[in-house]
């Protein structure tokens, strides 16, 4: 197997050689086991390998010494290795936690710097509700004017801070530069001096830096000449303090806090005070911690002992770990010792009088930062469990019924840890505790606990009032240790209570928004959906006017982050309350003269509305476009860009309608394209790209030509983002009807291939995808040959990633367009290059496999000449060492089998079949599955009789493979076996089929439904082939097993066997089995009957009298499942025999079904109602009505309810037919109840 076989003869030789070598191997294996009398015999050769034994023992001493020495050396070396290992573990241990992967990640851990800015916002205090009935704000309420003023001051302050920072930075730079110059001068002087007194070493008196630099030799001057690298802001570890502050609001300095608070004394409340605690210092070190800048509802004011909540995750981790160790290493108590030591033979000695136990309170306090013990300085450990836990620093709750508390929760739930008498608390405190308990249950409790707590908090929402609720929920949501699930529950709480509170939430809208808005930019899709839902509910509860007045101050915030999430929130409000209601506001904002930020946000809102609502913007398209259009001429470049992006989003949502709305922006966009550069240009191009597909063909053609100049110019842009946009626009432009093929071929393609089809583009995943997409779109216009001929040479490129991209494009083009227009020469080139690319691949994935498959299938019969070569490659790769290669080769066989058959290459296929058969001993399940799949596709196209290897050899090889537990193997194997059982059962002996039957039972356990279904069907085929008796016996035995899934599948199999071999062959045995006094078996039989009657339909009329006694017995059984299953069987049976005159038997059965109508178990009652429904169809409604009339006016309500339910089903099913069967009534009390029209006689 040194070279790849190329011709048919070579392949046959190859196959023959392979078979021979296998036979030989088997033979030699056989020989090796025998040992001839005279020879020494290869004892244990296979155990120890052939070379590892010394055949003689050396007698030379020095050799032995030598050995000792080397042994010793080896030993010491090996201990060194152990040491190294230990060291490495120890080193690692300090830096990384080996369990880090398995730990739950908090939301905070995965957020980007941008998203983390949410911690910098403040949960703002309540605001006055101007829409309330008594609209006069109370003196301490914050009104709209207050808020606007505050936000203005804040913005101004931020701007000033930025300016100050910039100035400081500049000064710093200046200073640095000066210093450097000085140093440079000094250096030069030194050098001069050095040159003057060459031999004398000299010490520099200056700073450490200069010392180091001078001592390191002569090359120094050049180092100083280079511009000093100043750490850029955002460049990571080396960033200085000042740089850090360059990014706004990342660090919370004193100045960043709202100044208004200090002035009024309202905001500067107890929250700002640093908690007095040892841990407090640690907190202060981490500057942007939410707890410090946001007013916690309860946390900081209460002197929580350890301030667990105020620690960084790292610290918390460490403390938790320490506690864990402490708990394990805690001193043994007397009880512990009593338990461990035998009671007899030991005496407990009194400690000597002089003994003083070592008590180091300081250390105790340190290791157990529980406040209770900490405040006292020292406490005698109590013996009860709770005290022990608290001694170890684990938070404990006074109330035992509450779920356990995590250390991080301590800050929030501190009050629950104190044991107080609730009766003595005032109403507010009691309320607070109640809410806290409910929240804790929701956050940490078990599902049932959570459910009841959620219901309670919802029911009592109005009673608690919005203030106390939100004051607790919102800080919890801002907690940095929050996990996804916890957040989900808390958000759910808000959602539920919003409904209840309704307009009471108005003062808290901004508070809630601050916490919920960040969900809108979460990376998790469901978080975004949740956030949207909350905001839209909030909007519905609070109303548009208060939403606008609350969010208005954020619109021109200096902070881009705040503006971004506010825009998104506004879009959600628009979708909740309707776009028209928001239009006047948007119009005003987008024209704001005061600040460009407001205009920017306004336009961004429009963009987000388009993204969020899709085609729902269509009715308001003209208005929306009108609102943003002036942004294209704005002075601020950012506003221009966002306007173009908003137009792009609008056009995308409106497609394919609404071009007339964009008329007035076409010209500005077009002019913009020739004026703008870089980012703005990209946005403008994007807008044009989305608008062109909406145009009619002529206009599209015109604009495409106009834009193309710029596009082609930008083809060479090095910017990745620009490339992607350009590609997208090219795709959109060329996809329209108006652009003709000749234009694309002559004007676009040359540049397109020159700039885009290169190795660089294949490196980035998204570029790659966009390029392939655009290429396919272009190919749709210019045709496959044009494109393929340009691409085909690149298949021989030396870069594999690039080759894959080419294959991917060719694959998609040929799948779309077929290969009918590809000429002989191109076809040859294509096949050869494909083969080259296929053989040269080093990492096997689906791209090349799919590509090769589509090329072969597209060419169809024209592949004939290349098939030997392809098969040679497959054979060669099937023998490869790497499992992936083998798997891919087998997969390729299944893709091209149909084409090979079309080409009439039966011989080649047989060769492949034989080789695949040889490889059935494959170890890797993935590969084995593919090989089985390949064999299956070969069998499918060749047919049973012509298959090589013959089916009678193939099937016995498959029997043991059925035992394989791997899903892919199972599925392919059962498919193949089922195929053979279906089409060619006569090639295999019945005995073999029986053996397979037994193996199949195991397959019923498979998790995958497709496998179970294939198995059950195979039973049918086998039963058809060898007669049902043996198969049935096997299956009936299987009814005795415990597992439900197995029994269910078995009953289905029995029903299928009965269906394929006609029921009379199976029913006697099946009914006989019902006599086995075992619940599972009897139920299995009933279930089989149910499936059986479902499958055979009207054939059931011949068997109904046979099974009636059995069903009658089952319907009288004590076991509810018996009755249930029998009812299901009756349903199927009665529906099958409708109209065949079996009413007598069915009426008989109805008499046994009817008493079950009062069942309460849902499964049973459903089955009973179904059976009655089936019988209604078969017997007609009159019979059922006459049964029903008995109970419609029964004195007991329970009875009436059931009867009316049956009556309703009956009535809806046969309303018209019932007219004839209603009982006749006499008139009473002057009411005419007789239906006189029915008494007419002619």
């Amino acid at each position, binding site marked *: 197997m040194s070279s790849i076989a190329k011709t048919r003869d070579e392949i046959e030789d190859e196959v023959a050689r392979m078979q021979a070598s296998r036979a030989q191997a088997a033979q030699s294996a056989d020989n090796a086991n025998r040992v001839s009398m005279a020879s020494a015999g290869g004892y244990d050769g296979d155990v120890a390998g052939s070379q590892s034994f010394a055949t003689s023992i050396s007698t030379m001493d020095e050799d032995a010494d030598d050995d000792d020495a080397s042994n010793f050396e080896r030993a010491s070396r090996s201990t060194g290795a152990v040491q190294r290992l230990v060291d490495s573990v120890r080193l690692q241990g300090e830096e990384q936690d080996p369990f880090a992967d398995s730990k739950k990640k908090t939301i905070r851990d995965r957020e980007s710097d941008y998203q983390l800015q949410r911690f910098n916002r403040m949960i703002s205090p309540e605001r006055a509700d101007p829409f309330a009935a008594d609209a006069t704000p109370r003196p301490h309420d914050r009104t709209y004017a207050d808020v606007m003023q505050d936000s203005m001051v804040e913005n101004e302050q931020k701007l000033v801070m930025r300016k100050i920072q910039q100035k400081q930075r500049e000064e710093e730079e200046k200073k640095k530069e000066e210093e450097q110059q000085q140093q440079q001068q000094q250096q030069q002087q030194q050098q001069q001096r050095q040159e003057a007194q060459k031999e004398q070493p000299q010490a520099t008196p200056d700073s450490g830096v200069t010392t180091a630099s001078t001592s390191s030799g002569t090359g120094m001057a050049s180092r100083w000449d280079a511009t000093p690298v100043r750490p850029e802001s955002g460049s990571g570890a080396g960033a200085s303090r000042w740089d850090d502050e360059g990014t706004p609001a990342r660090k919370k300095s004193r100045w960043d806090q709202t100044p208004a608070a200090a002035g009024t004394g309202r905001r500067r409340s107890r929250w700002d005070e640093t908690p007095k605690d040892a841990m407090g210092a640690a907190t202060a070190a981490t500057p942007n911690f939410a707890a410090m800048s946001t007013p916690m509802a309860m946390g900081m004011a209460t002197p929580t002992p350890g301030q667990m909540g105020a620690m960084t995750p790292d610290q918390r981790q460490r403390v938790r770990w320490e506690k864990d160790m402490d708990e394990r290493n805690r001193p043994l108590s007397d009880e512990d010792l009593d338990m461990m030591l035998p009671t007899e033979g030991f005496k407990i000695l009194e400690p000597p009088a002089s003994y003083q136990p070592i008590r180091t309170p300081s250390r105790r306090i340190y290791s157990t930062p529980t406040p209770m013990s900490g405040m006292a300085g020292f406490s005698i450990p109590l013996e009860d469990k709770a005290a022990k836990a608290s001694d170890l620093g684990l938070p404990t709750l006074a109330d035992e019924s509450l779920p356990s508390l995590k250390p991080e929760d301590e800050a929030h739930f501190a009050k629950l840890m104190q044991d107080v008498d609730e009766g003595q608390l005032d109403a507010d405190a009691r309320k607070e505790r109640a809410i806290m308990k409910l929240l804790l249950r929701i956050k940490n409790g078990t599902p049932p606990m959570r459910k009841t707590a959620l219901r309670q908090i919802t029911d009592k929402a109005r009673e608690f009032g919005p203030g106390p609720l939100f004051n607790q929920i919102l800080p919890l949501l801002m907690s940095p240790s929050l996990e996804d699930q916890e957040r989900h529950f808390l958000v759910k709480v808000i959602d539920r209570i919003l409904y209840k509170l309704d307009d009471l939430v108005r003062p808290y809208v901004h508070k809630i928004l601050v916490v919920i808005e960040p969900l809108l930019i979460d990376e998790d899709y469901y978080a975004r959906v949740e956030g949207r839902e909350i905001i839209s509910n909030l909007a519905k509860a609070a109303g548009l006017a208060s939403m606008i007045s609350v969010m208005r101050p954020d619109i021109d915030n200096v902070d881009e982050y705040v503006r971004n999430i506010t825009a998104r929130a506004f879009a959600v409000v628009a979708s909740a309350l309707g776009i028209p209601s928001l239009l006047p506001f948007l119009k005003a904002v987008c024209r704001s003269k005061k600040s460009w930020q407001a205009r920017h946000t306004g336009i961004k809102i429009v963009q987000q509305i388009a993204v969020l609502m899709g085609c729902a913007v269509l009715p308001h398209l003209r208005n929306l476009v009108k609102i943003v259009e002036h942004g294209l001429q704005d002075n601020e470049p950012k506003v221009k860009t966002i306007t173009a992006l908003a137009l792009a989003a609008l056009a995308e949502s409106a497609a394919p309608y609404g071009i007339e709305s964009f008329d007035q922006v076409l010209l500005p966009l077009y002019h913009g394209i020739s004026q703008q550069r870089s980012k703005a240009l990209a946005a403008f191009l994007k807008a044009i790209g989305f608008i062109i597909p909406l145009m009619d063909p002529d206009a599209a053609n015109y604009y495409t030509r106009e834009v193309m100049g710029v596009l082609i110019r930008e083809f060479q842009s090095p910017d990745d983002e620009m490339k992607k946009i350009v590609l997208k626009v090219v795709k959109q432009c060329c996809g329209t009807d108006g652009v003709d093929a000749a234009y694309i071929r002559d004007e676009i393609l040359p540049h397109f291939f020159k700039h885009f089809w290169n190795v660089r583009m294949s490196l980035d995943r998204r570029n790659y995808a966009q390029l392939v997409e655009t290429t396919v779109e272009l190919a749709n216009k210019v045709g496959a040959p044009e494109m393929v001929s340009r691409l085909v040479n690149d298949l021989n490129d030396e870069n594999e990633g690039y080759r894959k991209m080419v294959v991917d494009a060719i694959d998609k083009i040929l799948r779309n367009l077929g290969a009918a227009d590809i000429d002989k020469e191109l076809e040859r080139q294509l096949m050869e290059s494909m083969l080259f690319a296929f053989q040269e691949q080093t990492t096997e994935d689906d791209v090349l496999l799919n590509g090769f498959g589509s090329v072969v299938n597209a060419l169809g019969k024209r592949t004939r000449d290349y098939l030997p070569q392809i098969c040679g490659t497959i054979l060669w790769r099937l023998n490869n060492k790497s499992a992936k290669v083998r798997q891919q080769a087998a997969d390729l066989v299944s893709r091209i089998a149909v084409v090979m058959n079309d080409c009439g290459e039966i011989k080649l296929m047989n060769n492949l079949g034989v080789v695949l058969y040889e490889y059935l001993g494959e170890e890797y399940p993935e590969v084995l599955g593919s090989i089985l799949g390949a064999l299956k596709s070969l069998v499918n196209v060749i047919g049973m009789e012509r298959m090589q290897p013959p089916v009678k050899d193939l099937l016995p090889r498959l029997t043991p493979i059925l035992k394989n537990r791997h899903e892919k193997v199972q599925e392919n194997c059962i498919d193949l076996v089922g195929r053979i059982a279906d089409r060619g059962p006569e090639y295999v002996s019945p005995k073999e089929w029986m053996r397979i039957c037994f193996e199949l039972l195991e397959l019923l356990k498979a998790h995958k439904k497709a496998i179970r279904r294939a198995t059950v069907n195979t039973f049918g085929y086998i039963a058809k082939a060898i007669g049902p008796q043996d198969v049935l016996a096997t299956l009936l035995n299987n009814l005795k097993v415990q597992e439900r899934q197995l029994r269910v599948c078995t009953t289905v199999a029995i029903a299928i066997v009965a269906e394929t071999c006609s029921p009379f062959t199976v029913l006697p045995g099946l009914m006989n089995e019902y006599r086995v006094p075992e619940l599972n078996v009897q139920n299995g039989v009933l279930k089989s009957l149910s499936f059986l009657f479902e499958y055979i339909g009207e054939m059931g009329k011949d068997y109904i009298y046979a099974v009636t006694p059995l069903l009658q017995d089952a319907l009288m059984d004590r076991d509810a499942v018996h009755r249930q299953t029998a009812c299901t069987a009756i349903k199927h049976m009665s529906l099958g025999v409708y109209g065949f005159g079996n009413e007598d038997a069915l009426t008989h059965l109805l008499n046994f079904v009817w008493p079950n109508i009062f069942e309460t178990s849902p499964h049973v009652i459903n089955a009973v109602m179904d059976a009655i429904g089936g019988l209604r169809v078969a017997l007609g409604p009159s019979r059922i009505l006459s049964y029903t009339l008995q109970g419609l006016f029964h004195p007991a309500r329970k009875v009436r309810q059931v009867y009316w339910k049956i009556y309703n089903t009956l*009535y809806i099913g046969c309303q018209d037919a019932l007219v004839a069967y*209603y009982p006749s009534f006499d008139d009473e009390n002057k009411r005419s109840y007789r239906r006189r*029209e029915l008494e007419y006689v002619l």
Partner: protein
Amino acid sequence: MAESRYNIHSQQEHLQSKYMGTGHADTTKHEWVTNQHRDTYTSMIGHEGLMDYVSIAENESRERTRFNLLQRMISPCGPPVKKADAE
């Protein structure tokens, strides 16, 4: 599982209750019979043959009969029985 079954059940009941003519445990005889009458008239109007039969018996034109039947549907059994009446 069981719960969802229950739900399906209650859904079914809810669905049925939306149809005119269905009943429940508190349906009175008067309501029930009224519905029967209306169904009967509907059936007569709907079936060609029955329509002919009734119009011959009443000696009216088909259209007049149809109109009469529709009129009779308004209150086929007279005014509803008062609570005291029924008990």
